[in-house]
């Protein structure tokens, strides 16, 4: 650490990246983001334990809630992430592989910090869940219909869903309103829309039409196509209740 920034080459190769994470977290905090989600893609695919101390650095500077996703497979993984200061953990493929994980996490830590991420797309008129979407070579069907999985996960104690609509992901053509509406009608816990945001109108559409509780976006913010403060002013003007 130097001047409050993690510097390169002290112990771990990824420190420069971590420095970027902190700078980005600070920027979004100051721009008025209501919550941040960190996808930890360094999560070890071969089962080795990973260094998650960056979560502690993030917790130190953030005064808004944040969620960590990626590589959380056990109660111990979850406990470590929460003890480092994350408010929520998000699980996806490990929950599909072993749905009991949701039950165990909810019982141990409370539903409020157990987010279930779902990657889903339309296939001949039926929405189906995909797994291991982080790695194109490993992405496969989870052999579940999306609404069935939503109901089961909620029954098991999921406290929030992030629905990543794969058809829309990264193309910035708008959220998948139809799919989000369907999931909204099948759950009674908070639902966060993910995938497809390209313009400020897309955010207004998803709140008004799909009644989601939050809109998640990455590229439009990272690439500074949309500034969070401007977006919030716009949404308030559209009659959507949002923290300024």
């Amino acid at each position, binding site marked *: 650490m130097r001047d409050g920034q993690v510097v390169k080459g002290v112990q771990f190769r990824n420190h420069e990246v971590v420095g970027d994470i902190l700078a980005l977290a600070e920027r979004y905090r100051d721009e008025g983001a*209501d919550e941040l989600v960190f996808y930890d893609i360094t999560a070890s695919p071969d089962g080795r334990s990973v260094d998650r101390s960056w979560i*502690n650095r993030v*917790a*130190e500077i*953030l*005064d*808004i*809630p944040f969620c960590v996703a990626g590589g959380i497979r056990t109660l111990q993984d979850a*406990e470590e992430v*929460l*003890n*480092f*200061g*994350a*408010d929520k953990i998000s699980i996806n493929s490990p929950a599909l592989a072993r749905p009991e994980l949701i039950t165990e996490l909810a019982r141990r*830590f*409370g*539903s*409020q*910090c157990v987010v279930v991420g779902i990657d889903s797309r339309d296939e001949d008129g039926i929405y189906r869940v995909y797994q291991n979407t982080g790695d194109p070579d490993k992405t496969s069907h989870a052999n579940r219909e999306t609404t069935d999985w939503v109901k089961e996960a909620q029954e098991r104690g999921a*406290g*929030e869903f992030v629905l990543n609509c794969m058809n829309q992901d990264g193309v910035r053509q708008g959220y998948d309103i139809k799919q989000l509406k369907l999931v*909204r*009608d099948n*759950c*009674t*816990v*908070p*639902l966060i829309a993910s995938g497809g945001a390209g313009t400020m109108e897309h955010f207004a559409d998803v709140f008004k039409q799909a*009644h989601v*509780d*939050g809109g998640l976006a990455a590229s439009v913010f990272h690439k500074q196509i949309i500034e969070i403060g401007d977006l919030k002013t716009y949404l308030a003007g559209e009659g959507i209740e*949002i*923290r*300024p």
Partner: protein
Amino acid sequence: MPEVAIIDGGGANIASLRFALKRLGADSELTTDPDTIRAARRVILPGVGAAADAMEKLRSAGLDKVIPALTQPLLGICLGMQLLFDSSEEEDATCLGIIEGRAHLFDIAQDQPVPHMGWNRVKQTRNTVLFNGIPDGAYFYFVHSYALDTVAATTGRTSYGRNFTSVVHQGNFMGAQFHPERSGKYGARLLQNFLEQND
């Protein structure tokens, strides 16, 4: 002796609260020791989890007797605020009984997801030192499934299907249903007000 004693209820996720206090220049200690708690300038009762569990942990450390007798400013956060009241519908838990009232589960509906998670406004219904410098109707971050109706000690209320107590102040006992440590600059201001009020 730390400035702030945080009562250890055994839950994970105390880091964010300790960091928030540190940003305000206050050192804190996580403890269940009655003497440490009695001697601290400020006491915070946090709480994530279920009311019955949390009360059981307090009882096993003898804190169900210690806490109501404290005379320095105490702030209950989230479940910690609910524990200050008589009881909770959650597993029919008997709480500390400092403030009159019972926590009830929210009505669950498609248009009203539970847990209630997110940023909501706090309407300031009575003056309290906790609101110094905070505009009426400011947003704070909530995470809860149970809530208290408004009572005489309520100083702030929030609406989620029904009006509930979001800030309470009775003598030296204060509480916030939201998480000030995760509520941006106004959350930090509320914590600062709690720390800096006259003893």
